[in-house]
């Protein structure tokens, strides 16, 4: 079974470690969500529905944003962990982002994130608490695992990014003779197209998260 991963994001102070654990087949999402709703301090995690997470970069960009706002003392939600979930959203509506990206009673793929905002929060304390609290199968937090359990169509819909990077979308243009001309890219294999599509979707999402609906 995979173990809790401890990461250090660039630019953040070295003692502000990021701890991440990914689970599939979670059976007690309802209980976990209740702990968050009740504000149980033992359950101060970002509990994210992993089926709407595109990639590790997608999740960690939200962590970076929340951590930066935490360091600058301008969180908009209850704590840095709810702020991570809020930061996944593409607008300023906290409740909506928590509902969309946070754990739901029916969540089965779960991403748990916790920051070492205090020296007493260590990898082993978190690890212990998570294994005692989450009923599910822990898997490695990486792009391949996320790709295996996320729902791209749903992600596109959430961010209103239907068509971005997809075949025949605005990024590509049809020549007069009907053949598709990809934007400067040489035609590649299906795998290369899929990779390009994923990259375009990711960069579009990061942009929307950064803007947070600012007009």
């Amino acid at each position, binding site marked *: 079974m995979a173990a809790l991963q401890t990461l250090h*994001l*660039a*630019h*953040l*102070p*070295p003692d502000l470690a990021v701890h991440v654990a990914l689970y599939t087949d979670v059976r007690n999402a309802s209980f976990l969500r209740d702990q968050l709703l009740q504000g149980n301090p033992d359950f101060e995690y970002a509990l994210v529905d992993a089926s709407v997470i595109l990639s590790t*970069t997608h999740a*960690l*960009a939200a962590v*970076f*944003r929340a*951590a*930066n706002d935490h*360091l*600058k003392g*301008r969180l908009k939600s209850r704590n840095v962990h709810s702020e991570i979930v809020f930061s996944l959203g593409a607008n300023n509506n906290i409740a909506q982002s928590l509902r969309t990206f946070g754990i739901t009673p029916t969540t089965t793929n779960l991403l748990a994130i916790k920051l070492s905002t205090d020296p007493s929060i260590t990898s082993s304390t978190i690890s212990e608490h998570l294994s005692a609290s989450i009923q599910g199968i822990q898997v490695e937090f990486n792009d391949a695992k996320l790709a295996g359990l996320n729902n791209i169509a749903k992600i596109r819909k959430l961010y209103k*990014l239907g068509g*971005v990077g997809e075949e025949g*979308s*605005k*990024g*590509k*243009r049809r020549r007069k003779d009907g053949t598709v001309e990809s*934007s*400067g*890219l*040489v035609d590649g294999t299906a795998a290369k197209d899929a990779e390009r599509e994923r990259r*375009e979707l990711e*960069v*579009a999402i*990061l*942009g*929307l998260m*950064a*803007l947070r609906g*600012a*007009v």
Partner: protein
Amino acid sequence: MDGPSPPQPPLPAPFTHTHPAPTLLTQGAEALLYCTYFLTPSHPCALKYRPSKPYRNPILDKRLTRHRILSEARTLVKCRREGVSVPGVLALDAEGDGVSGGWMMMEWVEGKTVREVLVAGAKRRKEGRDDEDGWEEGVTALMGKIGRAVGRMHEVGVVHGDLTTSNIMLGPLAAPQQNGVTTNGEHMEQVGEGLGGEIVLIDFGLAGQSLQDEDKAVDLYVLERAFGSTHPEAEEGFQEVLKVYEESYKGAKVVLKRLEDVRMRGRKRSLLG
């Protein structure tokens, strides 16, 4: 001899922790451009930092900085999702901490500005180190690509506002290269040294959304002047920009008509001095 370089305001948190420290690339009037990385060292990015201006009223300064960062980011995000070749936005902090300004991180563009490429090429040719035929063909191909990129940008309703050769980059070839031959069989030598690659438009600090032909024509005029003043040898080739631009979207012809008016006014203005 160079004078002392202007003092650089230190980067704000969280970049005070960044190791190795971001490298300063350029220092413009409004912004400093650094090379650093996003979340991990394997993900290079450009950091555009807009320090606060001590001589401006602090409240106004904060508002201006915030506005500029969000405006540039908004245009980049729109362009990217509509298929205009620009660096994607990775993160930003438009608020700063009240004293130090704000920043935006964007994808790193591997490559050089068109200005750098043309200046280096002109120098090589003057020294007789480049074969002329390959170079001229290369410049023409490059002009075509610029015309298409600008056309696509205008088609989606974005005007750049500062379209100079420093704000157009020539990224790497899309196809991985092997021994000077791209994987689609194109020989590097055929396009003139350093002229191959994909066009990436940058610096949208003064950009905005506009459907006005006038604004688009001014973009083209600024670009034409930029070529004329810094790259006289490439001025002729500029026709290729307009030719490809004209065919790149439906409204292009009207904009080119408008460009003639803009040129006329420009000439009158310079006559009046």
